[in-house]
């Protein structure tokens, strides 16, 4: 029997993914361990790896295909001796499995049928369900993902109107998290309204009294999953998290000195350390969080969760979007360990290969735009974290030091805090501690 290649599910909430790239062409032979394709999810690009030997018989969804439901057939591998006809038959059976445009969708794992009045269909469906079971079994044997993949077999029962379903499909809205307001909890169009910009359905060419050209654009860029995630999360944050901001100027002389010392260490020629200012700032923030544990917390709607370990998320900008990998237990790691980990994260982020484990969690974030010559900025909190520190460039200013005018290197910090978690005084104390450890790195030895 041919082997199906399905859109993988990486998390229980993932419902759709995009085919980023096929690495094999139709007809290519496939060996166990070969990477067949790359699949883009809402956060990362995953590789689909084969166990079986055979050849790629058919690509159903090509490079760039978007919004493909989890467990949809995206390609087929034929085993030795299997003909084109076998493949066709196999695909046909698979597609029967998933009828499109179901008005009242009831997805249940329970395969027992309750329809008794239509005996013919009964038999057909029983057969189909038998096949479904087989496929489900094969699925786990045939294709393994480089990341341990969890198929969601939870029992889902969804009721949605045909129009709402169509709009959800068109607009790529995840209906699993929507509470229906129609009869018996049915999801109807108005339940999706908060997700839809009415303008999208308006055909501008047909708008009457079109007077100006202000709405014209040159290109329309479809949103990647990453872009969508950033948009939803940050919009939600700005709208629901009560931010307040504290500013501080920090003398950078000591960080600069420390960095030079660390980077000139000649302990081990092969493992020569090159740490960045940011790595030192991460460590300083870690210490500050240790001293102000109220800030090492996340918002949990009806409670505040506090943590003993310090997990810090660090914003990494790539062409594909913003990522925030998390340095776990940063409090237990040395500056050089943090530095090494950050370098790996940056590399992975640029190649779109960060895994959910790399970016989930964290109690606090750091965003540093100093390298882009940004003097000072305020950042948006990544919920449910307690806050985010926005780090600006290193700049020089005149100060009177011991009665003499001197240039001193400075950094501006802006701390955004979720007021639900901490009040001004706590946050001020926290910012003061960050300043202290940045200006007195030796304090971190204490």
């Amino acid at each position, binding site marked *: 029997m041919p082997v199906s290649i399905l859109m993988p599910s990486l998390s229980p909430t993932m419902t759709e993914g995009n085919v980023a790239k096929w690495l094999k062409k139709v007809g290519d032979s496939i060996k166990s361990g070969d990477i067949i394709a790359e699949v883009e999810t809402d956060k990362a690009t995953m590789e689909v790896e084969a166990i079986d030997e055979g050849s790629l018989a058919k690509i159903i969804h090509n490079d760039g295909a978007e919004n493909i439901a989890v467990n949809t057939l995206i390609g087929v591998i034929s085993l030795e001796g299997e003909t084109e006809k076998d493949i066709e038959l196999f695909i046909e059976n698979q597609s029967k499995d998933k009828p499109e*445009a179901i*008005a009242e969708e009831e997805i249940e794992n329970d395969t027992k049928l309750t329809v008794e009045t239509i005996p013919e269909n009964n038999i057909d469906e029983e057969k189909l369900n038998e096949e479904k079971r087989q496929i489900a079994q094969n699925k786990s044997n045939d294709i393994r993902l480089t990341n341990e993949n969890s198929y969601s077999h939870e029992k889902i029962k969804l009721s949605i*109107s*045909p*129009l*709402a379903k*169509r*709009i959800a499909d*068109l607009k790529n809205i995840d209906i699993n998290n929507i509470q229906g*307001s129609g009869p018996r909890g049915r999801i*109807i*169009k*108005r339940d999706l309204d908060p997700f839809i910009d009415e303008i999208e*359905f*308006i*055909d*501008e060419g*047909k*708008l*009457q009294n079109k007077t100006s050209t202000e709405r014209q654009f040159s290109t329309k860029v479809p949103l990647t999953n990453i872009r969508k995630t950033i948009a939803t999360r940050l919009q939600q944050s700005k709208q629901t998290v009560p931010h307040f901001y504290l500013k501080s100027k920090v003398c950078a002389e000591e960080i600069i000195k420390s960095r030079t010392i660390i980077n000139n260490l000649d302990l081990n020629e092969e493992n020569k350390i090159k740490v960045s200012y940011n790595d030192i700032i991460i460590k300083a923030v870690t210490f500050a969080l240790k001293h102000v544990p109220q800030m090492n917390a996340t918002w949990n709607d009806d409670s505040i969760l506090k943590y003993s370990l310090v997990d810090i998320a660090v914003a990494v900008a790539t062409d594909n979007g913003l990522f925030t990998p998390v340095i776990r237990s940063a409090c237990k790691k040395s500056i050089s360990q943090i530095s090494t980990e950050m370098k790996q994260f940056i590399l992975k982020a640029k190649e779109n290969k960060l895994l959910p484990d790399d970016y989930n969690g964290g109690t606090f974030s750091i965003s540093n735009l100093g390298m882009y010559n940004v003097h000072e900025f305020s950042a948006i909190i990544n919920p449910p974290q307690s806050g985010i520190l926005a780090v600006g460039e290193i700049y020089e200013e005149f100060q009177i030091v011991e009665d003499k005018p001197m240039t001193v290197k400075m950094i501006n910090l802006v701390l955004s805090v979720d007021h639900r978690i901490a009040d001004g005084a706590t946050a001020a104390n926290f910012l003061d501690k960050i300043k202290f450890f940045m200006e007195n790195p030796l304090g971190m030895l204490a």
Partner: protein
Amino acid sequence: MIEQKYDLAIIGSGPGGYVAAIKAAQINMNVVVIEKKDLGGICLNWGCIPTKALLRSSEIYDFMKNSSTFGLKIKNAEPDINNIIKRSRDVAKKLSNGIDFLFKKNNINLIYGSAKINKNKEIEVKNSKSIKKVIAKNIIIATGASPKKLNIENNHVNSKVWSYFEAMAPKKIPKTIGIIGSGAIGIEFASFFNSLGSNVSVFEMQQEILPNEDNDVSEFLRKSLSKKGISFYTNSNIIDIKENKTFIIKSKDLKSGSIENHDFENVLAAVGIRGNTENLGLENTKVTIKNNQIVTHDFGSTDEENIYAIGDVTGAPWLAHKASHEGISCVEYIAGIIKSREKMVIPSCVYSNPQVASIGLTEKIAISKGLNIKVGKFPLSANGKALSLSESEGFVKTIFEANTGQILGAHLVGVEVTELINSFALAIKLEATEVDIFSTIFPHPTISESIHESALDAFDRAIHI
């Protein structure tokens, strides 16, 4: 004065009030209805129902006149207006009695008399015999509306110009009748009197007859009724009506400016209706009245706490089914059963010959909203059932949103289309898309197959055209 206490008092027993009362009784409210005149209101007594009875007579008379088409010979068929009206009144009476029965069955208290709300939000009910005081936790005003009078300067004849009350029970069939206004009421009476042999002229200020309908519908109906002998004067303003032995209508063409005189035996003013907001003591409350309508918010709530208003007294569209629907949701709201408001999509019907039925957006409005639409149209001349009935006049027009397949509107003209529009009401309510209509099996041979074909046509897939 006798005092009586209730959970809910409803002023008016029309399709808004009586339905609200039954609903309230069903959920165990102690409810009283106050009615000034006829149980069932205008709808049952002087509106929807008796006019449909009249139109049935004219329809059958039309069949008789066209009997040769069906291979039948009927000679000397002629209308007997007295018996036509008697039948219409009997039907109305029967239904009104039916409501009396429903009230008894549901233990609804009924008080005849005029209601007036005082400063303490108590209702004083006055009739020729007594004055009663009704005290209720909540009040629903469902007093309906009355015909608007013509707004003509120096007009001396308004009292002799018919409203629908007089038109519904004429002593004889007028040889000529001028109808001012081409909404549902004007068009239905035009159709009725035309069938019975009157020479009918219809005056409309706007560019098209049935101005609220889709343009295709208005144009089609105008052509169809013109063929039957009705004269239409659109873009026409009535500047004066004089009465000699007959009525002389002086009309001005709003486009050319030319003025014409027309001579009629009777004139019917069907220029709309205005809410019955007077003499209810609303000045004693915070209820806001604007343009003779009670201003309402969600579920009929007014600016005065515990006073609600539903149906025609709250403004257009003036439709019985709207009033009933509002009545039920208002009661459910008072009882705390429903909390979130739904947008109403209200079908509307005109019982001319051919009939008109519509729901949702017209093509013009959909375009003006900037929507990306697909329009389908299927003529009844391509429908087998319509042909077999010799009723091939008309069409089914459907309007869909192009991307989502949402049904935005449906506009039908033809035989019994008023019985077809509910399919669209249901489909829109259930949020069906074009695909759902495509995959529905419509029975053959029926006029309803045209719904299927029209939807298919919108997406260039029609089978029979």
